[in-house]
């Protein structure tokens, strides 16, 4: 029985999807398939009702049932109901089969007998299983799924019944209850089969277990159709052999289905598109709905009969169910339309649907309010002519030149800024426009264009700009006087000063420098935050950048007694980066300044350039005190100075590294630090490199 087990192995888990769907076909499943095939063949070839035949038939049945029980016990809760119901079906059919054999031995066989009642009762748990499957695969919409399944199944059963079973039963002499029972077998098989096919046709990932269930019921259907069509002439031994083999095959395949990949997911609502109204489903419904009434019309011309009456009932049932289904569909569409309208009207952005000629197909409430238009003023008219007919400066704006409409017609996606829309009363407002293509079956039909009034945002940006402008003026103007005066005094231009005066002057110059850096850093950060520090990237050698930074800081390094060297470019080495050289120099200068500040006199600071894939790494390496591990993460934070422990306070705003990181990130790179206390630190700036032919 373990051949059919579903317990996972290390190998199988490697092919399991993130949601748990296991698509692995295990070797022992194929062993089970081979044994099942052998048993069915033996049942076909062995003389019927001999000991060997009985041993194979009964043995295979018992083993399959036992395996099925063991598998069903291990099923997860979400699918347990489905498999237990199918197991109940199998148990009932085996019991019915046994009762039939007893009746046959007692020569008490009549049609329909006790066994037939049991066979028909066995379909009750199958219908329960189908219900669970439908509910699982169509959460919240199982009523619609049931109606669809019944329409399709009744239609299919009617067609098969009219063309295949009815002619056969016409000669059998069966009437009344026996006739109904004879029809019920294939009808129920078809109902189940159609339901399963219907579920598979709903899309989603292919489920082998569901497909095997379809095969199983297809075999039952074939068996029941053969039985019904041969009922009239009496069923011979060879036919019985086939019927028994088909019945056994149906059971074995259902047990194999329970062990197949996807068995644990047969009723799980998948997120990748199952349970949709697919084309296959619409086609099947259309065939059923159209064919059966035509069939009834044709047959009724041949005169009244029991079969025709059943077919007429089926046709009426299909028509009524179809009307009900259409009513549900209309209600559903109406509800969805209302929800869509509600969502569209609830959003603050203006949303308009445009066709490929730029004509408005729909406009939401916000769009109408912003443009002060009624729906009829917009729908069916070219949007550009209504709201986008002039440029910001008031000059006419031809539709042919409009970048929004160019994007709409090309099916592109994009955000367009700096545009102006005009209201119905002629007043203008600045907008930011987002264009998304509207595709139907892969064909571009237009676009959904949303727009936002950015008047307030622009006003806030202007206030911020003015604030920075005024603050920079008000802070830097007095600083200019203070710093400049001190520098002139310090220069000796107005005569020598004594040592005490010189000490005070140096102190004042240093602190005015510090204040100047702080003001510059705060203004830089404000501009970075507001996105008003545009970067102008150009290809530049990383080696040259490092050399320039080192050259610029040599004076400070000499004063501190620290040697600073830039790594020379090895022969043939190219490390060209695509950055704003001015800003990256600011970053490197900041890193070098820090390295000098935190290094002891006599130590060395150096730069190193390496290439890593599409990035270039420029390192500033010092032999300073290093940064404790628990403070490494803080160094790039604003005002995140490292606690020195020796009560020495170093000049600096605590903003330099925050600015450096911001510039590195905006340049498409990053900044990293590694450090060891007492050994030194290594700050690395990673920047996007330029390869031959363009940016990497």
């Amino acid at each position: 029985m373990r051949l059919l087990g579903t317990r996972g192995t290390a190998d199988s888990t490697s092919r399991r999807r993130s949601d748990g769907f296991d698509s692995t076909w295990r070797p022992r499943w194929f062993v089970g398939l081979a044994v099942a095939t052998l048993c069915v063949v033996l049942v076909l070839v062995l003389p019927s009702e001999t000991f060997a035949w009985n041993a194979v038939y009964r043995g295979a049945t018992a083993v399959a049932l036992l395996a099925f029980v063991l598998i069903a016990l291990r099923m997860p809760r979400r699918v347990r109901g489905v498999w237990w119901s199918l197991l109940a079906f199998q148990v009932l059919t085996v019991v019915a089969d046994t009762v039939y054999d007893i009746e046959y031995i007692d020569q008490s066989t009549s049609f329909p007998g006790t066994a037939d009642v049991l066979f028909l009762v066995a379909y009750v748990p199958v219908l329960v299983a189908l219900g669970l499957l439908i509910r699982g695969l169509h959460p919240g919409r199982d009523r619609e799924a049931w109606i669809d399944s019944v329409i399709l199944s009744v239609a299919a059963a009617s067609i098969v019944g009219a063309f295949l079973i009815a002619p056969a039963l016409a000669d059998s002499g069966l009437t009344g209850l026996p006739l109904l029972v004879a029809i019920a077998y294939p009808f129920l098989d078809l109902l189940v089969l159609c339901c399963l096919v219907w579920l598979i046709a709903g899309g989603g990932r292919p489920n082998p277990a569901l497909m095997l269930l379809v095969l199983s019921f297809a075999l039952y259907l074939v068996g029941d159709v053969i039985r019904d069509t041969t009922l009239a002439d009496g069923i011979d031994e060879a036919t019985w052999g086939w019927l028994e083999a088909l019945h056994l095959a149906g059971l074995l395949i259902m047990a194999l289905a329970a062990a197949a990949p996807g068995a644990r997911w047969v009723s799980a609502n998948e997120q990748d598109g199952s349970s949709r109204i697919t084309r296959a489903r619409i086609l099947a419904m259309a065939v059923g709905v159209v064919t059966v009434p035509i069939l009834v019309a044709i047959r009724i011309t041949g005169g009244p009969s029991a079969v025709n009456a059943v077919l007429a009932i089926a046709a009426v049932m299909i028509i009524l169910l179809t009307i009900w289904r259409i009513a549900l569909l209309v209600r559903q569409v109406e509800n969805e339309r209302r929800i869509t309208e509600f969502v569209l009207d609830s959003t603050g952005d203006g949303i308009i649907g445009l066709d490929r000629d730029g004509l408005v197909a729909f406009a939401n409430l916000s769009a109408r309010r912003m443009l002060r238009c009624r729906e009829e003023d917009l729908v069916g008219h070219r949007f550009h002519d209504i709201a986008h007919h002039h440029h910001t400066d008031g000059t006419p704006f031809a539709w042919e030149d409009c970048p929004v409409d160019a994007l709409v017609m090309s099916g592109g996606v994009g955000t367009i800024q700096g545009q102006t829309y005009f209201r119905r009363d002629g007043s203008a407002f600045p907008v930011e426009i987002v264009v998304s293509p509207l595709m139907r079956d892969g064909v571009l039909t237009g676009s959904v264009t949303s727009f936002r009034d950015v008047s307030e945002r622009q006003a806030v940006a202007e206030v911020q700009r003015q604030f920075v402008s005024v603050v920079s003026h008000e802070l830097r103007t007095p600083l200019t006087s203070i710093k400049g005066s001190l520098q002139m005094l310090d220069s000796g231009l107005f005569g020598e000063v004594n040592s005490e005066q010189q000490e005070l002057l140096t102190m004042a110059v240093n602190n005015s420098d510090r204040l100047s850096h702080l003001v510059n850093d705060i203004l830089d950060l404000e501009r970075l935050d507001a996105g008003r520090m545009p970067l102008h990237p150009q290809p530049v050698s990383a080696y040259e950048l490092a050399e320039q930074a080192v050259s610029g800081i040599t004076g400070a390094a000499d004063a501190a007694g620290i040697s600073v060297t830039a790594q020379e470019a090895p022969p043939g080495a190219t490390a060209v980066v695509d950055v704003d050289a001015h800003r990256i120099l600011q970053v490197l200068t900041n890193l070098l300044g820090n390295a000098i500040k935190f290094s002891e006199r006599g130590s060395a600071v150096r730069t190193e350039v390496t290439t890593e894939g599409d990035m270039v790494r420029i390192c500033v390496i010092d032999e300073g005190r290093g940064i404790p591990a628990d403070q490494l993460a803080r160094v790039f934070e604003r005002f995140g100075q490292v606690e020195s422990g020796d009560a020495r306070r170093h000049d600096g705003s605590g903003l330099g590294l925050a600015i450096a990181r911001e510039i590195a990130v905006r340049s498409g790179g990053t900044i990293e630090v590694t450090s060891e206390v007492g050994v030194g630190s290594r700050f690395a700036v990673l920047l996007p490199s330029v390869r031959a032919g363009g940016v990497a």
Partner: protein
Amino acid sequence: MTKRILVVDDDHDVRTLIAMSLSRVGGHDVRAAASGSECMAELEQWVPDVVVLDVMMPGMDGPATLAAIRATPAVAEVPVVFLTASVVEADMERLHSLPVSGVLGKPFDPMQLPTLLSELLGW
């Protein structure tokens, strides 16, 4: 070579500092004005080799004074250098787009200012 320079800045201290830097360090002949209108009045009597013009001033600001200079035939060709404390990119772009010889930032090193001015004007 001694040049004639007119310094225009509404801030007394900065004006004094610039004048002192250009005269004492650069050795130039410097006059000062406290506003755009004072600048225009001074230009009626004295034509300098360059006007060092502050940008943000009450009344006639730097660009307005520049426009007035360019509109006065007698001094229309006099080079003008802006001096600004602004760090706003848009402001800088706007200033560079005007007919000036250069834009210098505040704070500046008064010991270097004459050299910077010479480099800008090709003296």
